[in-house]
């Protein structure tokens, strides 16, 4: 077997992530090679370097045995390197087909040969089981489907070295199986697959080789068959993994949130985005919403927050909030951790202290009447940074400079600072490192004990089962099952989510 990609002693300083001090890895053709490590350990940086998006300060990159200098992703693509990003890079207002061929359009004279493109995409969709309607606009797709588009996009460009950045973060077990099936197929065809993840059981299932990075350094290179998940975890963090668990029943009598027959009809009159959703959520209770991405969870959140019109009724602490604006709902004490932090929760180019104001601009401590209290805001930003271990130089640092985990800790801290009675938490630990994950779980546990009600939406089934008092399964916009997390296995939950059971 030949070596497809080799990195030798890569060093790099990059926005928000630990300096890559010394990363080396060898990826052979016809293998799946996992790169594991906590978020912030430098995995994504290494991959960005390999994909030409960043340039190493020192070190060597060899592709198929030749040292290369990757100036930009085009160089990488030319060498057959393709990347499926963690944060999707798709044009919302283009169709799936247009997104896939964007930048590599088959020409038909001066026009684009959509027919040929469509045929090729359809064929690939089928071959890899990546089923997406090519003519739908990307903005109408859920996160899971967007990822499929990303994968198709890379395959379309004929990549033979594929990088997957946390590809399973948004998938349910059955979909993970499908993806892994596709990865095995790619491997059989002699491609090199680089698989970035911090989910160790998945890594051990799919990978041949594993490279572990910690704090910007390669700490181990092992064969997957020679190690256990525990050994890998220890290599990764040097300590035990936190568990998503809650203790005891903290449920109180009063109902914090009540949904009654809530539906969101579509403009076109086709199937409702969410349909006849009803449930009660008590103070001190966590209700987990399980479902494959794109089955109405995002819309449910939007309905609760008032971001979308709905029929039916939503009550908060006993009185209806249907007529209330988004701002009013925030101010009543509903907190939100949105699913896509960079798009929905942060002003990336603004300093942290200004981001502290976002969503809280109608009250203390950031406002004095209608006037922004800059001094108090900066003080409170410092408090959040300290309490929630947000690693950044100070409140003046731009949000963009922080790593994903630190951004998320900041957002959680910001939402918790108004002590909400209800927290709508959408993927609260998606893409954050193990340490931050444990910290966020701890915050939620504590608030639950104090009587906060939580609507938890997550694609991480362990998190969902571990943190929830009750599980509601959403399928095609409707609640199809209610499960007791204590008596449900991940497999049963996965089946319920896909409607197989």
């Amino acid at each position, binding site marked *: 077997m030949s070596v497809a990609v080799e990195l030798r002693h890569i060093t790099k*300083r*990059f*926005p*928000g*992530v*630990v*300096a890559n001090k010394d990363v080396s890895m060898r990826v052979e053709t016809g293998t799946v090679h996992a790169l594991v490590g906590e978020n*912030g350990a430098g995995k994504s940086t290494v991959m960005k370097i390999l994909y030409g998006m960043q340039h190493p300060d020192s070190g060597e990159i060899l592709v198929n045995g030749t040292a290369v200098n990757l100036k930009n992703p085009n160089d990488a693509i030319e060498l057959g390197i393709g990347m499926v990003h963690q944060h999707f890079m798709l044009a919302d207002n283009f169709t799936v087909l247009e997104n896939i061929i964007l930048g590599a359009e088959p020409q038909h004279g001066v026009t684009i040969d959509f027919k040929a493109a469509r045929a090729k995409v359809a064929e690939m969709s089928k071959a890899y089981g990546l089923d997406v309607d090519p003519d739908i606009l990307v903005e109408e797709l859920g996160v899971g489907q967007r990822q499929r588009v990303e994968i198709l996009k890379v395959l379309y460009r004929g990549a033979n070295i594929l990088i997957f950045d946390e590809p399973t973060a948004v998938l349910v077990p059955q979909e993970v199986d499908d993806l892994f099936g596709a990865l095995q197929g790619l491997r059989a065809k002699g491609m090199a697959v680089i698989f970035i993840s911090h989910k160790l059981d998945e890594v051990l299932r799919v990978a041949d080789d594993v490279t572990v990075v910690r*704090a*910007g350094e390669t700490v181990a290179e092992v064969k997957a068959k020679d190690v256990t998940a525990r050994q890998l975890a220890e290599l990764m963090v040097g300590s035990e993994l936190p568990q998503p668990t809650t203790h005891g029943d903290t449920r109180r009598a009063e109902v914090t949130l009540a949904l009654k027959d809530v539906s969101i009809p579509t403009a076109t009159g086709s199937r409702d985005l969410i349909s006849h959703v009803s449930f009660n959520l008590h103070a001190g209770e966590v209700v987990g919403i399980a479902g494959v991405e794109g089955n109405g969870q995002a819309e449910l959140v939007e309905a609760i*927050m008032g*971001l979308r019109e709905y029929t039916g009724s939503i009550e908060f602490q006993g009185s209806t909030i249907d007529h209330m*604006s*988004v*701002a*009013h*709902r*925030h*101010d009543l004490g509903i907190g*939100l951790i*949105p699913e896509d932090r960079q*798009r*929905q*929760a*942060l*002003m*990336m*180019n*603004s300093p942290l202290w*200004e981001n502290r*104001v*976002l*969503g*809280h*601009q*109608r009250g203390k401590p950031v*406002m004095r009447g*209608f*006037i*922004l209290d*800059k001094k108090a805001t900066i003080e409170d930003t410092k408090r959040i940074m300290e309490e929630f271990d947000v*690693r*950044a*130089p*100070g409140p*003046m*640092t*731009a949000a*963009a*400079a*922080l*790593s994903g985990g630190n951004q998320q800790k900041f957002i959680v801290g910001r939402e918790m600072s108004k002590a909400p009675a209800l927290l709508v938490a959408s993927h609260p630990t998606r893409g954050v490192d193990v340490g931050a994950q444990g910290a966020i779980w701890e915050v939620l546990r504590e608030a639950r004990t104090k009587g906060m009600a939580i609507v938890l939406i997550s694609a991480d089934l362990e998190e969902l089962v571990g943190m929830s008092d009750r599980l509601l399964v959403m399928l095609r916009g409707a609640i199809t099952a209610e499960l007791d997390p204590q008596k449900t296995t991940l497999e049963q939950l996965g089946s319920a989510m896909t409607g197989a059971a």
Partner: protein
Amino acid sequence: MKKLSPQKIALALAAPLAAAVVSIFVSSLAVLASHKSPFNAYTTMWEFGTQGGSLMEVLNTATPYYIAAIAIAVTFRAGLFNIGVEGQLRLGALFSAYIGAMFTLPPVLHVLAVFIVAMTIGGIWASIAAYLKVKRGVNEVISTIMLNSLAVGVTSFLFSKYFAVITEGSNNLATKELPKSAWFPDLVPLLTKLGVPEQPGGSVNGMLLIAIALGFIFWFVVNRTRFGFELRASGANPIAARVSGVNSKKMTFIALVISGAIAGLSGLPAVLGETHSYNMGFRSGIGFSAIAVALLGRNSAGGMAFSALLFGFLEVSSRALELIDIAPETYVIMQGSILLSSVIAYEVVRRFKLTLQSKELAKVVSA
């Protein structure tokens, strides 16, 4: 981080200095192309431009630029772009001259009334674009450009058909002259009292004070109030702003209407302070130059004041170029090259700063 290190000062100065060097270079090429000495051109401009009378003229030129630039900056800060200032100010000027001449009020009240007319007309005109944007999703850049053409047509039509009065022995059509109570006082008497020597034929438009006040209000509202925060949030990340409870449609509407209202004011220095009527000689292009002023001033109150003065200075001082047989329009090349090079220079410095910040962060995180 907060302290002024030499590095920080160097960074702050790097962009404007680089921009100045590049633009002087480009402008020199333009002068050289007409076989004249750039050095001679600059010294002539400087000598003429720094005379007392010229400086007053610079202030008078900069005043409407500044007000119009603030109007544009309001929308820029909200992630919108009002190109329609030209039309809004023209309509505002015409109506305020016409309606203002219909009645007489005590001096201050009369001026205020004219302000209200100008702001209302500008705001209403902008509200068409705002309505189209909010209700129909029409891009405000397109609609305001089209509304500009419409405004030029409408003002010409109304002016020549209905609003203008013909004065015997004059070729210049103009609206009825405003009563004295609506005139904005000239600042020269005040300046003389403060010890500034009087200049022959020199005048300083009193609207300068209004422009300065507007600058302060703009700074305060945008940077220090909830409204300003929501405006900036809508510009920085409209999705996040909406999720956090900002009514984005309302914000878009308000930003465009406020912008139109301020734009309406920018026609008043001429109407209230100089001609005391709307006439055929009403200066065109203020609304477009103001876009460049806002861009160069980076939408900040102080920055725009500087760039308005700079543009005014170039415009006034370049009149002297005619004396040495260089086309005075050279100033347009200067303005253009300053704008272009500063936009580029600021972007380069911004990226450099981000890299620095990242390095600093890497130190903190790995520590």
